[in-house]
């Protein structure tokens, strides 16, 4: 599908270029974020009644994984409140640039210009997730840490270094944003090539240089584009467009594949498997181990999680890739094949997370009503919904949705794997090369089916 330039529409373009809509949404999000921290600390310690748990881990998560990431990619990053205080200090302004910002504006160290730090940050969060997701005070601490680390990073390093290199959430959103049907791209790279000012990267009076440290002129994937629309505001050549495109368009690109991103795919897939087992499975001992931080049982759980996402899954996948490479007599190096085929796990992983999220989102969504009426657990009844009893929604159709999503993810992953194999092979060897990877995807899907649907 040829991308459709949505910014051709004047209203769309004006709305995306305008600062106020984005500013207001972000300010509201920041207020909600701070309220969630406050609620985590002074609200009821009962997770399913606490605003922070209900809004962050149920409502926000549902919106993020079921709607925003699949359809808008990094749409959340465009309105994320976490980097706002740091950005404001950095810019010295809430809206347009004024040139009076405060930051050391150091360059991010070269060796860390990848998403390994995000991988590690996500893994750390995953290790403690059973507690983080259920205990409001711990959620409060984690959210506060996000805010403080983002602020400090902004005061030391240039632009949104936190978002680009540290944020554990931004890491996986970026990976999965490759499947989203929207993108910011330049209309004509040749125009950029001769445009000496590069105001999209350096900034202008109308906007900031790309906060995500990306030069839009060479942007070919969504991974590092935060959809902040600054380039749309600063481009003096009217050469930046916001496009509607086919799902998974970035996965068709053979350039720019990286090992850190490949590992992110394994981390996310492994985390989906582990979470499904811990949070939805019937194994009490496993739940207890995940909760009992610091105990020998938790250590075993942590080592299992680490082993699965950093050794077992990549190791098995490597064997599958090597097998395909051998039978298809591929000349590509094993490392390159491994990295390339890992991108087939992007749609599989996203669908796994959607299926996992479906399990608890509809089951827990009714906790929203009491939390709305009594966000601080003070006995209020602001909207008359404080005593609405828990009730799972759509539970009769959720398993079918999950099955459809998982099967869709498997098919999508297989198609992607076949396409990746086709980049280097004649038709005869394509299937041979991709088949073991498809088998890997099938086994993962079957495992998730068993864990989520039973």
């Amino acid at each position, binding site marked *: 599908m040829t991308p459709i330039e949505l910014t051709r529409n004047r209203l769309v373009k004006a709305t995306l270029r305008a600062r106020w809509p984005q*500013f*207001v949404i972000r*300010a*509201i999000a*920041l*207020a909600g974020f*701070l*309220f969630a921290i*406050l609620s985590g600390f*002074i609200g*009821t*310690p*009962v997770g*399913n*009644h*606490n605003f922070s748990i209900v809004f962050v881990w149920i409502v926000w998560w549902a919106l993020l994984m079921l709607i925003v990431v699949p359809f808008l990619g990094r749409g959340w990053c465009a309105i994320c409140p976490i980097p706002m205080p740091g950005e404001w200090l950095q810019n010295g*302004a*809430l*809206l*347009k640039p*004024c040139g009076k910002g405060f930051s050391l504006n150091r360059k991010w160290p070269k060796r860390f210009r990848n998403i390994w730090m995000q991988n590690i940050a996500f893994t750390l969060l995953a290790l403690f997730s059973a507690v983080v997701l259920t205990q409001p005070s711990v959620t409060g601490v984690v959210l506060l840490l996000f805010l403080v680390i983002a602020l400090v990073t902004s005061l030391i390093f240039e632009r949104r270094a936190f978002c680009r290199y540290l944020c554990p959430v931004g890491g996986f959103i970026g990976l999965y944003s490759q499947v989203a049907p929207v993108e910011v791209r330049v209309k004509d790279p040749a125009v950029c090539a001769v445009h000496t000012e590069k105001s999209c990267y350096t900034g202008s009076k109308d906007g900031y240089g790309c906060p995500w440290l990306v030069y839009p002129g060479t942007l070919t994937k969504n991974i590092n584009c935060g959809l902040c629309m600054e380039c749309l505001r600063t481009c003096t050549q009217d050469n930046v467009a916001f496009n509607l495109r086919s799902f998974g368009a970035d996965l068709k690109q053979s350039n720019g594949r990286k090992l850190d991103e490949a590992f992110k795919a394994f981390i996310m897939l492994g985390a989906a498997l582990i979470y499904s087992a811990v949070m939805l499975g019937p194994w009490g001992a496993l739940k207890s181990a995940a909760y009992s931080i610091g105990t020998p049982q938790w250590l075993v759980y942590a080592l299992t999680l680490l082993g699965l996402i950093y050794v077992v899954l990549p190791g098995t996948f490597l064997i599958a890739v090597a097998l395909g490479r051998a039978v298809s007599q591929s000349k590509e190096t094993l490392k390159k094949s491994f990295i390339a085929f890992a991108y087939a796990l992007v749609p599989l992983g996203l669908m796994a997370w959607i299926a996992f999220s479906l399990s608890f989102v509809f089951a827990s969504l009714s906790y929203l009503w*009491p939390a709305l009426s009594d*966000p*601080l*657990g*003070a*006995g*209020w009844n602001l909207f008359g919904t*404080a*005593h609405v009893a828990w009730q799972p929604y759509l539970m009769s159709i959720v398993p079918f949705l999950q099955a459809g999503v998982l099967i869709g993810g498997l098919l999508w992953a297989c198609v992607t794997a076949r396409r990746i194999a086709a980049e280097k092979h004649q038709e005869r060897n394509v299937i041979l090369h991709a088949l073991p990877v498809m088998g890997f995807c099938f086994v993962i899907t079957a495992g998730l089916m068993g864990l989520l649907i039973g």
Partner: protein
Amino acid sequence: MKAERFALFFVIVLVIGIPLAAVLARSNSDAIEIHGQMADNGGWTPSDLKAQVGQPLHLRLTSDDVMHGFAVGQSAAPALDVLPGQWTTTTLVFNQPGKYTFYCTRWCGPNHWRMRGTIEVTGAASETITTTPPLYVTLNLDLDALHPSDVVPGEKPSAARGAALGVKIDRAGEIDRTQSPAQLWQALKAAPETAPLSDQQIWDLIALTYRARTTPEQLAEGRQLYQQNCAACHGETGKGDGVVAPSLKKTPMPGMTMTGHETVAPIDFTDAQNMLGASDAILEGKILRGGMGTGMPYWGPIFTTEQIQSLVDYLWTFQFDQ
């Protein structure tokens, strides 16, 4: 510049104003907030309240973990459910000064029984109440001494079979509360009017006397109290196999020194040798005072004298068929 200032104002109102207003609104209540948590995590907070005779004491209760219940000991007021994350309000008025115990009425965890607090009520008494010390104190009984029965029945004694014997004994309906069933059996065995009966028939006769001294209402009350407060450890059938029994330690070995911090396996009320050597006074004392270092809680501040008697009557049903 104007836009920048407006944006700043907007942010301040939104980001600081709303949370601040919420916090201020939250603290606007004159009732005492009581948070319940499982005993291992702190129990009731606060756990020591003060009140004045005749003055209402407004309470707002919530649970920070699982479902709890709230009741004040030796009070006729029904227990309240205290639900996680929700608030329950109640107002208490005390007519007599003293130290009252409030406690959890739901099995919330292995140490549920320790989830208690006190309300110290001061002021002038509206009437003079005289109390008598319990029997185990008057008789100076050693509640912790073993009291095995020398004789046990071959099968569970039955009041119905006892009634069928058609034998009348003087003691029926007025059992000495200091006497154990085993002692009563010995006395009946030696008495001329019951001496011809077989050992089992004497036990059946004893079952009849224990039934005769109580009423179905008392037994129903005792059963309810038992199920609410005792069955978690001692089990629904009295075998000492309640849901939390596995978390309690085994029966102490002879010679083992109890430090007061241990727990021991709950008593098996169906064990004839142990039970038939105990008297009402001993059972009442155990309930009132607790197990002293065994994990058995004290119920003195919770149950009324009548409730304890009903409970004791019900305990005998584990030995005697009705």
